[in-house]
């Protein structure tokens, strides 16, 4: 695996630990279908969050969350629907979240969790 993929995997682990520590239940990780991949699916009470995780080593080339483009968000929306269908989840409040991490694969520099980034 390339170095950047390793960093991405590490970021997803960090993010799901963070969500669990904040009372979420992680339902799924790295779920794939023909439209793409969802990093984390997590549940808090009755709402389900589909979380996109972005990890960067430094903030020198922009904030990690800046890398989430409108195209990417549109795809996440489709993926959320696909996941619900595949898992027969119907009556949940659904939202798209984003987590941006700056870290080197060992220590976390910063972590930001933005909820409901599509309104």
């Amino acid at each position: 695996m390339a170095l950047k993929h390793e960093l991405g995997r590490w970021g997803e682990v960090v993010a799901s630990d963070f969500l669990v520590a904040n009372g979420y239940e992680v339902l799924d990780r790295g779920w794939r279908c023909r439209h793409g991949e969802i990093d984390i699916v997590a549940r808090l009470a009755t709402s389900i969050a589909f979380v996109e995780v972005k990890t960067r080593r430094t903030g020198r080339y922009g904030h990690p969350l800046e890398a989430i483009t409108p195209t990417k968000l549109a795809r996440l929306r489709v993926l959320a629907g696909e996941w619900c269908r595949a898992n027969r989840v119907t009556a949940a409040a659904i939202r798209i979240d984003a987590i941006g991490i700056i870290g080197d694969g060992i220590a976390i520099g910063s972590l930001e969790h933005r909820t409901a980034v599509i309104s």
Partner: protein
Amino acid sequence: MTIGRTRSVALSGLSGHLVDIEADIASGLPALVIIGLPDASLGEAKDRVRSAIANSGFVMPPTRVTVNLSPASLPKQGSGFDLAIALAILAGSRDVPTESVASCVHLGELALDGRLRPVAGVLPAVVAARDAGATRIMVPAGNRAEAELVPGIEVIPVASLAHAIRVHGVDIAVHDIDVIEPPREPEPEPTQRDLADIVGQPDIISALIAAAAGGHHMFMLGPPGAGKTMIAERLVDILPDLTPEESLEVTSISSLARVAHTSRLATRPPFVAPHHTATAVAIVGGGSGIIRPGAVSRASRGVLFLDEAPEFASTVLDALRQPLESGDIVIHRANTSAHFPAHVQLVLAANPCPCGNAGIDDTTCLCTPDRRRRYLARLSGPILDRIDLHLPVSRVRRAQLFDSTAPRVTTAEARERVASARARAADRWGFTRPDPLELRSGRFRLKPTAVRSLDAALDRGALTMRGYDRVVRIAWTLADCDGSDTPTADHVGRALYLRQGVPA
């Protein structure tokens, strides 16, 4: 929720409105959204602001930033809001003290490196800010001279965004940077022309002085080479200097019409001579997006000279009727309107016919009578009716050229005569000119003996009632020029001749 606020100025025409700029630093993915009817160049502010903030050593908040320009229904143009937007964002993220930013009006376009570029229209914008009650305004250092022409408001020139942040009380190091100066216009060369250059046309000189003294519009008819352009240029020379208010108005218009360079107040009346292919928009103002002043506004408080007047499109000439009457012009758009001043003294010049030779001795006119008639008929009656002085200009003959005994009036002498004539008129009438009724029957009524020729013309049907009133007005101007207290029969006769000199 954190919000930063500040203010800037949106210009429509010469009048400016204070615009509240609020930046909301909300949660969400990084984005910068500008709302409140921005045009394309203002919409691009987000990219300039982002780079300028980063290159000034600050961090653009990595969240959703919404910038609202209020009142949201007023269309806003141009790049002059950049500084205000950047500071509102930094105040929202608490990088800069919010009160200091909120209490100041900001103007200026940001360069990507954070320096401030000068913008057009700073003078009217500063005036508008002051009139709206603002006490402090921050402008690009390159516009400093222009902004400081306005009294009664504290002008803070800044060279860059970092400099502005420091002025607002943040202790950061500001490096010496090159101030971006506006493009300089070369100093106008002192004019070499003088009224004494006009030889052999004493009637014209006295008519010109009367025109300058009374602010009468002028129409010159004569063959090519008779000196019509020369005469028109000298009219502006003999007008008195601008008053302080006029000067601010003239300078504001030139600040708006061109890209910023104004650094001193205009003191002399402008002279604008558009080419006869000019469109109605070029003359009265307009244009897509930003509404620009036209020639009639650039010539406000001065002279608008239309050479070869019949060659102008008739729609263009007729578009001048309304501004000539009201002294200002309003340009309407679907969602806004712009006011510009249009206090011009109009000077028209025309050849007697397309070939130019009609009515000249020793030459033959090649035009058919119909063509000749059509040529001058392009000047519509309503336009000519607003023109008081109709002057036939003839070619100078050799004998006149070398006649050293003929008196010559210099510009300085003429300007003095104009000034004293205007002073007499002001003494008599105060600030407001009397209406025609007052001139006809009030205490300014002329003696019956003085207006005998005029009454005869009215009886003959050679003169309309409006024409009658205009002639009386010209007679008063002529009397002022001669230094007499009331117009005599001679003044009225001359006025009648000047009004109807050209059978057009």
